[in-house]
């Protein structure tokens, strides 16, 4: 409960986002790597894994964000919030662009004979990894900006 008192509604929402990223990572990545190792990445199992991950994210968001907004009064956004959001979006967007560039380079420089490895499922999995990472970076940088200015 002390944790709830120490943080504002906005900061708690950011923490919840960060925990969501962690939960998804813990659930998604080990199973994804197992599928890659076993060579089943192109099977229906990987589609089921991605769908389940998205379902878990939606269910978690509904429950946790509702609880936070019930127990902690929400605040109206002001100029400081918008500045911090812009800064963190800028950082996460830069990382997203660099990651996508790396993915494109990897695709581009892979020898022609190996291109069959890049199935839509595998590319979707990589995009989820990149999105998760960028989301975590955004949350961490936002928390950093809020904590630093108090």
């Amino acid at each position, binding site marked *: 409960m002390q944790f709830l008192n120490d943080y*504002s509604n906005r900061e708690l929402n950011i923490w919840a986002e960060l925990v969501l990223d962690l939960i998804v990572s813990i659930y998604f990545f080990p199973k994804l790597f197992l599928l890659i190792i076993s060579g089943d990445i192109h099977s229906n199992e990987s589609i089921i894994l991605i769908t389940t991950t998205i379902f878990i994210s939606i269910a978690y968001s509904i429950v946790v964000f509702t609880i936070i907004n019930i127990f902690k009064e929400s*605040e*109206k956004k*002001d*100029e*400081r*919030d918008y500045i911090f959001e812009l800064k963190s979006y800028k950082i996460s967007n830069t990382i997203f662009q660099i990651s996508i560039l790396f993915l494109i380079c990897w695709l581009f420089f892979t020898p022609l004979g190996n291109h069959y490895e890049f199935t839509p499922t595998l590319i979707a999995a990589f995009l989820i990894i990149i999105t998760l990472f960028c989301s975590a970076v955004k949350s961490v940088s936002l928390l950093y*900006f*809020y904590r*630093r*200015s*108090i």
Partner: protein
Amino acid sequence: MGKQKIKNQIRRLRFEASEMTQAELAEKAGVTRQTIIALEAQKYSPSLELAFRISKIFDVPLEEVFQYN
């Protein structure tokens, strides 16, 4: 953010204005209490619009509230 070049006298002016609370000032200025806390701690430089709003609330010239070092 680091060390701000813009200093302010908000805390002093609040106490001179019948010990106005941070929450009251935040409500009048249309910002959150966290923003007032950050301003008083000299860790946030407000926009020009917010600076004018705050000086209007205290009914003093802008340069009496904010100083540029």
